[in-house]
């Protein structure tokens, strides 16, 4: 099972009004904390991995 888009959006909305510490506490109180933690662990892997040279679009002038 994965963290749903809806749950992710909900978490990010809540994070608007919380500090990082408060968010970490909030996560630990959630019934699906394992899913959230797994998602964040995966996110860290993604952010800390090596991107290849992308082919990116450019807008027309």
């Amino acid at each position, binding site marked *: 099972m*994965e*963290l749903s*888009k809806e749950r*992710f959006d909900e978490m*990010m909305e809540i*994070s*608007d009004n919380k500090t*990082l510490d408060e*968010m*970490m506490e909030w*996560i630990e109180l959630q019934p699906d904390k394992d899913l959230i*933690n797994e*998602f*964040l*662990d*995966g*996110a*860290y*892997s*993604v*952010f*800390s*991995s*090596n*991107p*290849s040279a*992308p*082919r*990116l*679009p*450019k*807008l*027309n002038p």
Partner: protein
Amino acid sequence: MIPHIENGEASIIVAISTEGRKKAAAVMGTVSLGNKSIKGVAKVREANNNKPPLQKFMEQTPKLILPADDIIKKELVNGHEVKLWVSRSSGEMGISVDDSYIRKDISPQDGKRVALQALTMVQAEVAKMPDGTLLTNSPSTGDGLGGKKEKLYERAGFGPIFDEVMMSVVKNGKLTPITSEQHRYLMRNGHYNQR
């Protein structure tokens, strides 16, 4: 003429072709539904329903623009520097940790804090961007994490990968995905060139 029933109200939809576009309007009249006869209501309907979905998408999407400036934001999380960057030349958005793209052996707790910090930084920056700002990323890499990256960026509001790029447009301070079909449409119609 197509009888149209919506919220208990019946009307007649007439398709009119105007400059190659389908236009629909409700006209005054009487509609017979089985053995019931209902007096029609004069009502002009906008013809959006008959437009091709991609044409609607373009009309509903603000003019696409690239970020006005390169953006670099840094935050420290338990001694780890989280950096968010956005390129004004391509709209590419990326995140690095400790100026490196190689996963370091940090505690799982710190890793989660770093990830959460990065996601909130993205959210905060996107909230400041004007409607129509185009953002991209290219999650296909040789590190075996392409699928994970794609999933993560999809959660954040990017569309699926098309031609190695995921795209998103800012609407009301939030990321709205650009689908493969929309992406293809933008390319075909010259809304951007490929590098």
